[in-house]
């Protein structure tokens, strides 16, 4: 076991996968000599060379589209979008091409590739370095969408994503990159895509979350236990598509109350899918309204620190929402 932060875990996953499978390559902006703007690929260019760790021009469409061509050809590319906010020039490739080539070719072509994207706010990145845009991708059939919240999950899920035969959107909450260190299993430990985890068990209500919200939800749950005697169960979805319905519904059955938390705005957000699914399939277990706690309905995270603090969801707001639901 090594103590790693999420950034180190991601780097380790890529390193190990590049070591074991020479079809794996990385392409993106500044991923080479610089090692990425966050340092995720630090050291890999020196180890694997110019071609397998490839600096691209500032062209997200090309990054996505060329990665798909390489995947179709037989490589296992990892494409880095420098920020999730900058993915949109590549949106056409992701939505029209990468997600659809398997279906449209009747299964004869595949795009086994990963698109890594730092997302999320709380780092003074304002409107264009803070977005949580996962819902665009979770609603696109043909993609898998992963959003880990711990170093072990980041490593294990990235390894799984690289090996996956389908295209995977890999969301890395940038605020978590160096937030904490935790034990990460050494070597070839893969965390399966499509399985949620339950980092805290509880009987009174369920908090469904992913990414940075996992950390916030766990902290909130401790406060609720200490101050209110409310035992919250925290379910870290880890994979947003395919969704682990069994774990979600089992938790609702146990607690009867569901609080869905994400940083992206509420309207049409991913939480709506969780809430609707719980309402459809877990209705008889519900003992309160399925509740969403989500980012505000503004086009992005505003810059000034008071404005950013207003935008961000943290433990205090989760506690407040959970209290209201628990009292229902």
């Amino acid at each position, binding site marked *: 076991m090594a103590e790693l932060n999420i950034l180190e875990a991601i780097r380790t996953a890529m390193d190990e996968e590049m070591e074991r*499978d020479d079809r794996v390559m990385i392409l993106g902006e500044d991923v080479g000599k610089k090692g990425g703007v966050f340092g995720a690929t630090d050291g890999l260019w020196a180890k694997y060379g110019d071609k397998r760790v490839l600096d691209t021009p500032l062209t997200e469409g090309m990054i996505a589209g060329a990665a798909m061509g390489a995947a179709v050809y037989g490589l296992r590319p990892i494409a880095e979008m420098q920020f999730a906010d900058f993915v949109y020039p590549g949106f056409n490739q992701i939505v029209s091409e990468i997600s659809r080539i398997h279906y*449209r070719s009747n*299964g*004869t072509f595949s795009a086994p590739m990963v698109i890594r994207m730092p997302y999320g706010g709380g780092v003074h990145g304002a409107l264009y370095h803070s977005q949580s845009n996962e819902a665009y991708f979770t609603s696109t059939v043909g993609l898998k969408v992963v959003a880990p919240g711990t170093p072990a999950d980041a490593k294990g899920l990235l390894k799984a994503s690289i090996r996956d*035969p389908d295209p995977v959107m890999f969301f890395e909450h940038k605020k978590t990159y160096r937030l904490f260190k935790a034990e990460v299993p050494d070597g070839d430990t893969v965390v399966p895509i499509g399985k949620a985890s339950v980092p805290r068990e509880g009987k009174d209500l369920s908090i469904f979350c992913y990414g940075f919200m996992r950390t916030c939800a766990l902290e909130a749950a401790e406060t609720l236990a200490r101050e209110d005697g409310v035992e919250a169960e925290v379910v870290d979805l880890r994979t947003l598509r395919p969704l682990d319905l069994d774990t979600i519904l089992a938790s609702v059955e146990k607690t009867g109350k569901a609080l869905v938390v994400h940083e992206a705005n509420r309207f049409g957000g991913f939480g709506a899918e969780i809430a609707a699914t719980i309402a459809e399939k877990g209705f008889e277990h519900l003992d309160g309204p399925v509740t969403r706690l989500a980012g505000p309905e503004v086009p992005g995270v505003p810059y000034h620190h008071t404005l950013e603090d207003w935008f961000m969801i943290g433990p205090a707001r989760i506690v407040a929402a959970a209290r209201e639901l628990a009292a229902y």
Partner: protein
Amino acid sequence: MARTDTTPRHAELGLTDEDVLGMYRAMLLARAVDERMWLMQRAGKIAFIISGQGHEGAQVATAWPMRPKQDWMAPFYRSIASAMTFGMTAEDIITAHLAKADDVSSGGRQMPGHYGGAPYNIVSLSSPVGTQVLHAVGIAMAAWVKGDDVVAMTQFGEGTANQGEVHEAMNFAGVHRLPVIFVCENNGYAISVPLDRQVAGGSVAARGAGYGMPGVEVDGGDVLACYAAAKEAHERARRGEGPSLIEAKVVRLTSHSSDDDQRRYRDPAEVEQLKELDPIPRFANELRAGGTLTDEVEERLRAEVKAEVNDASKRAEARPEPNIEEAHERVYAEPIPGGGTPVPLEPIEGGTH
């Protein structure tokens, strides 16, 4: 066989009589399949047709140097003749247009004109124009990373040449000298909008200079000129000297598609004149002048092509229709909640590092 005193052009290019007759036959076959599909569309058997008529010379010629099942192609919706040169049969094409269950391109999932075929290294095409250009570049990048002797070719129209993704593709290919050939088939119209409203400066080929690659303009009705440009581009790519851009000036003999009527925006005299620029009689005349093509050979080729299209149509029409039980399958490689069935994929191999 009567020969002229001088060496025929094709011989100077290293092509045998058999080669050029093969090219001519490929053009005839593509045209015959194309025409047959229009008939099927008129008969209500096919909902929509988008044609390659007028592009066949450039398409057969630029695809001719490519090595089947080794090189790759990312086509566009007029790429019928190139797709067939890459290996798609008349039956494959007609089956795809009839959207049959075992259509090699999509199993009946895609509209007509969306060429693709895994067995032939032809990447499945979508509808937003220009996306395929990046796929060819990605394939070339992968071959370059792996050190494989592979050349990728892509085709697109002059309208598509203006897409940002085409710029991104050419720039990236230029930066790394990737083994890719960009073939712009310039027929002068992006549906209804003429070249002067589409392409600033009027030349797509001229853009090559900005990407550090040769950009050559060729008469797309001059089959051997197209072949010469493609052969040079292919050799250049294999020598590691990087990408090439070929702009073939072709004619669009039909309306944009079966849903279009070009008489609404093209001068009737212009449309009438197009027939004189048809690459098929032009190539035939050249081959006749050199003594390679005779009446006898022409008759034989046309009879073969007609029989091939008739047989292909019959067989394609007899193929099974897709069934809805499979419509939710092959979404993902393995089943996940929401659909998908397993498709065999290569196991992950051990690394070499």
